[in-house]
């Protein structure tokens, strides 16, 4: 393993470590990971600063939810999960299962879709059980941002299990210990080189936060997005010493993306107009082609990316990248988002060992070559 691969690997493994507890915005682990990254950026020669902001509403599962069906305890995130519209239900509440055909819902757990939220609240149902699919490994990925919180507890149940419950009914006992509250976020900014007046500037971004550990289960968030952070930090390190004088180079390691892209929303309005933004979200397992989404006046950036892809042998295809790049594009900046795979997406098995060294290296080469092509075309 060469020096580049060692540095990339170190960032991924350190960010995924127990001490950072999944890096959810507003947590001690999240803040500590920002401090660690600031040290890495200073060591790479950057001037580092922090930008604080508040995310208005972040979900926090503060105890492991319970779902028992006729006395059998089901498994959180395999058989069921909290629904993001759920009201907080701290203690298990027993009740009879019923379908939407039940004439009176009071005190019953109703097997229905989320469109029944209003009726469930009006009739004081115990709560709703709604069907949800799982990923290829049988997990329900964890989310912490979503629609507004409703008035009744809502639990997502694995689709086949939901169908079985609908056939057999019986009794359940369930809790959804989940709060929604504001959270303090902190972007980490690093300036490697200031642009000359009127000169070209590049901003490399990656979100550094994760969805956070559950009370009893780790969510390492190694791919989403420790891998992207590693690529951005290493790319900046390589570019800082080789770009022509007068070209600006900065890095933003953003907080609160998983909670609604709040860190980039805060930052985008402050970025100098015309700055080229390259966001990396997921660089862990390239399968075929990297996904690219562009926004704003991104023509030159796309041309440079295309040339860079040909140079370093990375295939690219248009694909939705719902990440911080959209905030910068919405602010009128030329912005692209690049995704190169997230194995185990927002589940406990999103671990460092599933982040491929070859993909980290390929992503770094792609970003570095893109910036060099872009600067070459601007000179």
């Amino acid at each position, binding site marked *: 393993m060469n020096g580049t691969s060692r540095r990339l690997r170190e960032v991924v493994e350190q960010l995924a470590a127990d001490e950072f507890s999944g890096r959810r915005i507003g947590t001690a682990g999240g803040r500590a990971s920002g401090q660690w990254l600031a040290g890495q950026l200073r060591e790479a020669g950057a001037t580092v600063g922090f930008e604080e902001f508040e995310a208005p509403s972040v979900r926090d599962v503060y105890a492991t939810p319970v779902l028992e069906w006729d006395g059998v305890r089901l498994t959180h995130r395999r058989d069921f999960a909290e629904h993001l519209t759920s009201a907080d239900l701290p203690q298990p509440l027993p009740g009879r299962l019923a379908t939407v055909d039940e004439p009176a819902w009071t005190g019953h757990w109703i097997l229905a879709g989320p469109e029944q939220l209003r009726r469930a609240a009006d009739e004081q149902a115990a709560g709703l059980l709604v069907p949800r699919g799982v990923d*290829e490994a049988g997990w329900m990925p964890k*989310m912490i*941002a979503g629609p507004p919180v409703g008035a009744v507890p809502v639990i997502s149940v694995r689709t086949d299990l939901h169908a079985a419950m609908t056939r057999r009914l019986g009794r359940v006992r369930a809790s959804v210990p989940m709060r929604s509250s504001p959270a303090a976020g902190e972007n980490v900014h690093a300036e490697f080189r200031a642009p000359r007046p009127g000169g070209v500037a590049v901003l490399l971004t990656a979100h550094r936060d994760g969805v956070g550990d559950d009370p009893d289960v780790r969510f390492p968030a190694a791919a989403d997005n420790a891998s992207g952070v590693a690529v951005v930090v290493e790319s900046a390190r390589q570019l800082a010493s080789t770009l022509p004088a007068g070209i600006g180079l900065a890095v933003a390691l953003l907080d609160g993306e998983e909670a609604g*892209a709040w860190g980039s929303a805060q930052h985008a309005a402050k970025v100098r107009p015309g700055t080229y933004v390259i966001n990396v979200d997921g660089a862990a397992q390239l399968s075929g082609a990297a996904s690219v989404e562009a926004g704003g006046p991104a023509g030159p950036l796309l041309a440079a990316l*295309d040339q860079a892809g040909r140079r370093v042998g990375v295939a*690219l295809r248009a694909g939705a990248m719902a990440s911080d790049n*959209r*905030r910068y594009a919405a602010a009128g900046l030329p912005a692209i988002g690049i*995704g190169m795979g997230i194995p185990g997406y927002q589940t406990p098995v999103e671990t460092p060992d599933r982040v491929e060294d070859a993909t980290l290296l390929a992503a770094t080469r792609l970003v570095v070559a893109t910036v060099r092509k872009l600067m070459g075309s601007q000179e």
Partner: protein
Amino acid sequence: MIVYSMGAVMSDVQGGFLGDPAEALRPPTAGGCCGSPAPVPSEEVSASDCCGSAAPEQVPDRGNCCG
């Protein structure tokens, strides 16, 4: 051989865009988010399934991350 929706054949391409780079300005909404492979099948309320995205009503005037 892997054939992508844009019609290009992966094994024929060494690198760069499989098609017109400008397509990235109008990316297909299907095919995963945040670089993830296939989206997880879900019956959740739609906005909650897009990684890192708040519901539209939570981000007025900022351009929703879910697009």
